[in-house]
């Protein structure tokens, strides 16, 4: 299949991606087929690629808390709020989401306790996660630009609160490819359909090969998730019959490839069918929990109704991490019976108690399990919502959105444990020390993966684009 003569100039990578994006090129074929001849330039878009420098993390598990958990009631204690409860905010209130229904300062209804050797304070909403305090790197100075969910969720996922851009996971797999070709490189488990919906795992202007694969969506119960990934099961044929059929497809495809001088695109499609056939057997195994011990199931809370759903998602995340999926997102979403999730505009106590209960144990289980299996070292776990919540009350007993200063945390993957980075003011409204804008978060995550955010670019619509737009600073202080 020597199609392209050696003197042919190398076509640019960008050009190839645009033209035959996603194509299993000849280089990709070489890794799959012993008898395939190499050719210059063309690579399989998901083939593993070397990072820019030595990475600290090889994969990411992002635990997304849709709705915006309150930092003031979880990881950023504010004694001043307790002292001044009910008093008016002593400075001009910035733009909030629900103008007109906000009140005075609102103390946290939960106690904070110090945990571990580091003594990091964590509230009673997260007693299980708190036990991992010495592994947590709490980012207390997060800043975003949107006070409404839509823009904020999109910015967290894509860097932009205005335009459609590729999501963080797409950038990561564009930069690094993946080591397991039998599973998608970027999987998001039960993502939400609102606030950007699929835009939050789409590849935007990057080739479609980099888009996230959604497993179910928010609101779907795990019992109803018969096919975690679409089209992996053939409902009508036995494996024998399907292999027989595939052989026919391949015979026909081989025939047309022969007729068309071994057009690499046609050859690549022959390989795509073989890979698809392998995925059919290997991918379902990744989602099959029958091999997991009762102890493990219990560790993630699969034995209790409150934690079952999110526990399943977290356990899947570990199984996918073990199988070297590059970017795994676990979403806590709104759903029937939990209509607003973390978004406690009123009844903070009821809603945050309920939502924290659903995720605390599964997340702690995931951290325990990753550590026990030696995966936490090179897996970056990140936790957080699209913003935090206001130190003033809304509707008398809730909190409004606050993108001006809030908390996320990371664990594993080369970050300092038992460490709190940055700070908000004494009321917890604005980030004031070591401000970490979402662009900085993205720059830091890419850095941990061995990617320089300024070099990870893609040419589109007349210019080079980055996940971090024209901003982003790596928070070097949090690196272990």
């Amino acid at each position, binding site marked *: 299949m020597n199609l*392209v003569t050696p003197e042919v100039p190398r*076509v640019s990578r960008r*050009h190839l991606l645009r033209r*035959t*994006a*996603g194509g299993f090129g000849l280089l990709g074929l070489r890794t799959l087929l012993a008898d395939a001849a190499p050719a210059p330039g063309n690579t399989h878009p998901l083939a593993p690629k070397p990072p820019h420098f030595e990475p600290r993390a090889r994969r990411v598990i992002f635990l997304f808390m849709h709705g915006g958990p309150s930092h003031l009631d979880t990881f950023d204690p504010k004694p001043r709020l307790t002292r001044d409860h009910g008093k008016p905010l002593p400075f001009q209130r910035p*733009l909030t*989401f*629900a*103008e007109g229904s906000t009140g005075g300062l609102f103390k946290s209804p939960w106690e904070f306790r110090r945990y571990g050797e580091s003594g990091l304070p964590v509230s009673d909403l997260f007693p299980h996660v708190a036990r991992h305090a010495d592994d947590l790197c709490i980012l207390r100075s997060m800043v975003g630009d949107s006070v*409404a969910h*839509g*823009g904020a*969720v*999109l910015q967290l996922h894509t860097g932009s609160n205005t335009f*459609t851009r590729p999501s963080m996971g797409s950038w990561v797999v564009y930069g690094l490819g993946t080591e397991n070709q039998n599973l998608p490189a970027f999987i998001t488990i039960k993502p*939400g*359909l*609102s606030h*950007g*919906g*699929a*835009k939050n795992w789409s590849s935007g202007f990057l080739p*479609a*090969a980099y888009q996230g694969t959604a497993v179910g969506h*928010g*609101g779907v119960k795990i019992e109803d998730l018969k096919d975690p990934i679409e*089209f992996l099961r*053939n409902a*009508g*044929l*036995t494996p024998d*019959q399907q292999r*027989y*059929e595939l052989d*026919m497809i391949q*015979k*026909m*495809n081989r025939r*047309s*490839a022969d007729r*068309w001088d071994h057009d690499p*695109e*046609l050859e690549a499609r*022959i390989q*795509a*069918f073989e890979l*698809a*056939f392998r*995925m059919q057997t290997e991918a379902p195994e990744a989602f099959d929990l029958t091999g997991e011990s009762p102890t493990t199931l219990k560790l993630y809370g699969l034995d209790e109704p409150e934690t079952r759903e999110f526990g399943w998602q977290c356990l899947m995340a570990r199984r996918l991490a073990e199988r070297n999926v590059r970017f795994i997102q676990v979403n806590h*979403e*709104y*759903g029937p019976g939990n209509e607003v999730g973390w978004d406690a505009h009123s*009844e903070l106590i*009821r809603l945050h108690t309920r939502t924290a209960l659903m995720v605390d144990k599964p997340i702690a289980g995931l951290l325990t399990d990753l550590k026990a299996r030696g995966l936490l070292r090179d897996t970056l776990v990140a936790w957080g919502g699209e913003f935090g919540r206001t130190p003033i009350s809304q*509707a*008398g*007993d809730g909190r409004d959105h606050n993108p001006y200063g809030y908390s996320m945390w990371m664990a594993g993957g080369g970050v300092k444990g038992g460490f709190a980075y940055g700070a908000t003011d004494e009321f917890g409204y604005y980030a004031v020390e070591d401000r970490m804008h979402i662009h900085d978060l993205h720059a830091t995550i890419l850095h941990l993966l061995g990617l320089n955010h300024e070099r990870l670019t893609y040419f589109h*619509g007349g*210019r080079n684009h980055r996940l971090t737009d024209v901003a982003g600073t790596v928070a070097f202080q949090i690196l272990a």
Partner: protein
Amino acid sequence: MRWTCCPLGLFLAATGAWAGDRVELFEKKVRPLFVSKCHDCHGAKLQMGGLNLASAEGFRQGSAGGPLVDEANPPQSRLLTALSHVGKVKMPPAGKLSEGEIAAVREWIEAGAPWPPTAEATPAAGAAFWSFAPLAPAAPPAVRNAGWARNEVDRFILARLESEGLAPAPPADPRTWLRRVTYDLTGLPPSEAELRAFLDDASPTARARVVDRLLASPRYGERWGRHWLDVARYADSTGADEDHRYPYAWRYRDYVIDAFNRDLPFDQFIREQVAGDLLPSSEPDGVNRRGLIATGFLALGPKLIAEQDKVKMFYDIVDEQIDVVGRAFLGLTLACARCHDHKFDPISTRDYYALASIFASTRQLAKLEGTVSQLLFVPLAGPAETARWEAHKGRVEAKRKEIDELLAEEGARYRDRLAPGIAAYMLAARAVYLDGGEPARVAANRGLDAALLARWVDYLKPTKERRAHLEEWHQAPEPETTARVYQERFLATVRERNEARARWKRAVEEAQAEGRTPPEPPRFLAGENRFYSEVVAGKGPLALPEKDREAHLGEAARARLHALQAELKAILAAAPPDPPLACAVVEGEPVTQHVFVRGNPAAKGEFVPKRFPVALAGETQTPIAAGSGRRELAAWLSSPANPLAPRVIVNRLWQWHFGEGLVRTPSNFGRLGEKPTHPELLDYLTARFVKEGWSIKNMHRLLLLSNTYGMSSRASHAALAKDPENRLWSRFLRRRLAVEEIRDSLLAADGSLDLTMGGSLQSGEGTDQEFAEARKSLNPDEVNRRLVYLPLRRSNLPSLLNLFDFGDATTSSEGRTQTNVAPQALFMMNSPFVAARASSLAAQLLADAATPDAARVAQAYYRVLSRPPEPEETDQAVAYLRRFPGGDRTAAWASFCRALMASNEFLYLF
């Protein structure tokens, strides 16, 4: 516009014979005149009307109106008539030159207008960028192999191939050509009958007849309209944050399909989409319905309507429109200039905000204010009809409000009647849910209403969830005391709110008496007394019960409610018909637009009047005195003075036929875009397109009947070596079918494609609950209409569309990518959709028991691949069916049909 054969060449040929005096005349009199009187508008910086008098090249190219010099009759040259102020164009506009100055120019022109080459040191930066320059069409070049060239297109292509020492690929065989052109124009495969008819037609016009037949088919607009819908980033919802439906977007989609089917001249298509609402109407009420619908082009962009910074939100909408207009019609990324002057193209922030002023003076939303802004739906009706409809809506709303107020009053009465019993009912409820008392007996013993007690039990019984406001009650050591505390707090809240309302009413009366704006009604926060809020709302025990509501009303209230309901019914019965609505834009309040420094609306810079980008339209423009300026923008975009718009669309037409444009960045004709592979061809086609009335169908005929289009996609070794990217068009580019073609032809293969045109498949307005399945777009598996008619919810496109590279329907798309990945193979192998198509086709093949298997195989080949099988393929198929594991004949046939559908030959156009 007429053009002569290469005027440039004549001038260059003339440059050899310089007479000193003529050069002196030019340098001493003519050039200084050009510099002092003309360069401001026709110089290196600015080329109004496309004219650049700063270089010989610019002078020779002339203006958009044509060459400046008439070589056949120099005294009649356009330059001289303009300078003499005798024709329509009078230059300079500020005042006629002196007779002596005009005489000097005349003398120079009559001498052949020599422009000394030595003096021609125009820096490259000063020359008009290629895409901004006026059209410079040249005659098709001569070729050696003249027999190959079927039309002008072929001569341009072949001349270049010959100069590179390459031969064009051999012609595609007729079957391949027919499948190629049929998919190209209709997105569907040719039928067996069409194939046979074509193969049997030996006349030289056989191909032309096929093209005419396909162009006349309504399927043509469905395919080519879809191309434009990609450029127009068409979708049926706002996407972004809330993903609200655009319930009437489909009218714009249908308009686009119809425009292509009718071959609406493209310049008119531009004008309608930018300012159709402002164009003259032929309808009696003066409303340009079609034009209004066409402005969906502007109205249907993604919008973040829950953004709380409303100024930012509004200017994001404006920006999105500048972006789509720039990319779609001009091939320019104008929106880059929102925060800073464009880094690469001559677009300043002043240019940007001058355009922003136009869109900001356009009505974009029904209501900007509020947590979620309201989308604008424009009635497609005359003013009188609209007024009637609005008045009716007002009456309905008022009557509903009256009913709501009555029920609120009655609810308060109900609450106040029962409130004194709160403590008693709380204690009784406790006796039931905590002490296990039998409800009926507890009620009877305590003289309470059993139904009401049941509601209190429901409300108070402990749940798994933390309800902070009930914790005091549930943990009370002395329930009697605590129950009274809850009751007292409840009554206190009632009193406080009543008082606040009474104060407000007095304040309103006073304000009205004094002619002041009345104060806002008091707002009560639910969380201030969560117990109260829950008890009086929804299923709370003191909320007027939904069930048997009327039984709880007093006699008078019941009568009043019935009367109001009857009145509402009468109003609804007398409703005028709802006018059809469109997602469109209309004229808004004119704004005074300033530059926003670094894009920040709070940082106002200098004022900018409405106008078009200076680098394209010149520094001196007719001021836009009234209105938004969209009408003027539409006129300028589609005017002969703007060479970009026709170049951009002609390039897109080429791209949609040949897989790549002559300019391979079809939406970027700026400096970061690519240059045309064949600039002369592009300008030839563009000039011809304009001359022939911007007819897209004419351009199809020209391109499709060329031998360039008819080439095989098989590349010779020489072509691959010398032309690996096919920039010389040495062969046809093999392409993968687009998602619409894949899905629609699979439906066509088993005969289940529903060819109904137009209309809406989406219902409702607004958005859905966050996690509702309804948020997903309609599943293409479940509706058999052509894919172009399925509504697109931006936030959740059907996975099939993502799988086969539909794009994101959010920004103007310059073309689809073609990926080739394993999940697509899984779709072919395992999806219920393909399985259903295969089974259904198999069942049809098997329907007549008498048909021999070989004939069935042939039918299957025709239906899926539009060709008969070769003998060995038939043998192979028959053997496949015979040896199918398990021996189930129906399953075997279905499997064979699926294999055909999964084949490369189906998926690719060669």
